[in-house]
């Protein structure tokens, strides 16, 4: 083994020893041994609020020194991903996996959206290894929450219209869900944070940074402990999901992560750090905003399928293995 390879292996191993990943693993472990450990639900929601605001403010403060025009390609890419991934995922799940159409739509929609928890873990990973990254992916995170819900709604209507004549009240809820998908809580917090970080003069921002910056990594760890437990709970539901869907939950992110790295490198010109973040956006599946939207839009679909896949399979895969993998890909490409 060459010195370089051994270094890479060591680096990989050390990277698994970041506190964030270990806390996530601790949470899964607690769930697997069926410990009675329980984090208060209001604590978990509070940490989500904090982390979204924090990442927004941090990103906004950095964007304040940049021109808005430079962000346009990243934004376009984000929209493109949000619109196309659900179609791709739908095709795979329905045509290759033979799952019924409405369940396929519901699952596909989750993969087109993003998981802020995975994104934050990736940030922690890069920070721990002192890898620099571009500031635009945070904006992409905010943008990518909603379009996949829109595509999911349209797909579901199309499926329903194919199945039976359009006399039904099929899209009665469409405007409501659409509005909700664009005004949902995470977007408000993330976009609000970005704006405030961008608008507030630096010296006024100083007073709030000890809270929003210095506490960030510690609170992220407790959040990932909670998320490990949530993911662990879903592990029991693997059987219900079946072999095809579980493999989908692992292979789809690898495919999407590769796509993300490629686009980030060749079209956006991002560094290895930034490309890793884009890969994570593309490869992760939503487990906060999309599930309730699909529950209303497609009541026929089985929630435990999409919750198990996004929260029980893809999320832990990305946190434990996906992120270092995408970083490797990104390094190969940017160095190659």
């Amino acid at each position: 083994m060459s010195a370089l390879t051994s270094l890479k292996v060591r680096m990989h191993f050390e990277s698994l020893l970041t506190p964030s990943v270990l806390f996530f693993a601790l949470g899964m472990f607690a769930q697997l041994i069926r410990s009675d450990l329980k984090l208060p639900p209001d604590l978990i929601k509070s940490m989500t609020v904090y982390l979204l605001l924090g990442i927004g403010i941090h990103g906004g403060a950095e964007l304040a020194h940049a021109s808005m025009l430079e962000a346009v390609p990243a934004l376009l890419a984000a929209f493109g991903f949000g619109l196309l991934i659900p179609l791709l995922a739908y095709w795979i799940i329905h045509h290759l996996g033979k799952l019924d159409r409405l369940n396929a739509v519901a699952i596909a929609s989750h993969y087109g959206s993003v998981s802020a928890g995975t994104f934050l873990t990736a940030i922690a990973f890069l920070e721990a290894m002192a890898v620099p990254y571009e500031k635009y992916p945070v904006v992409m995170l905010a943008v990518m929450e909603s379009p996949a819900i829109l595509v999911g709604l349209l797909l579901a209507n199309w499926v329903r219209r194919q199945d039976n004549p359009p006399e039904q009240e099929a899209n009665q809820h469409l405007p409501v869900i659409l509005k909700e998908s664009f005004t949902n809580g995470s977007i408000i917090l993330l976009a609000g944070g970005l704006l405030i970080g961008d608008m507030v003069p630096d010296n006024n921002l100083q007073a709030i940074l000890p809270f929003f910056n210095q506490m960030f990594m510690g609170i992220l760890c407790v959040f990932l402990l909670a998320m490990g437990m949530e993911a662990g709970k879903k592990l029991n539901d693997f059987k219900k999901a079946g072999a095809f869907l579980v493999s989908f939950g692992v292979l789809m992110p690898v495919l999407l992560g590769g796509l993300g790295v490629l686009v980030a490198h060749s079209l956006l010109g991002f560094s290895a750090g930034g490309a890793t973040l884009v890969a994570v956006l593309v490869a992760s599946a939503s487990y906060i905003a999309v599930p309730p939207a699909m529950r209303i839009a497609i009541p026929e679909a089985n929630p435990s399928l999409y919750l198990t896949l996004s929260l029980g399979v893809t999320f832990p895969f990305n946190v434990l293995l996906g992120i270092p993998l995408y970083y490797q890909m990104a390094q190969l490409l940017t160095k190659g």
Partner: protein
Amino acid sequence: MIGVKRIELVVEAIEKQEVISRLESINIRSFTLYQHVGGYGERGIPDAGAFGEKFENVTFVIACSENHLQTVIEALRPILKRYGGMCLVSDAKWILH
């Protein structure tokens, strides 16, 4: 003490607003509401986890006169049809203030 019907409706939390609107549309403005209700049924989700607030149930208790009962039931039935849930009706006496 006058005889009333006690309606107990358990539906998913995401339908809360629709239930309230439908009740208002038939001029029922009084109800009691229990949130964060768990449950398991035909389509029920046992535990949707930390972010599953919207997957929990809510329970409405509505006391109404015998004459109104049919109107209320007809107003609520479409919701039960689409998303499932439970609706029980029983007899009770209302204690006048």
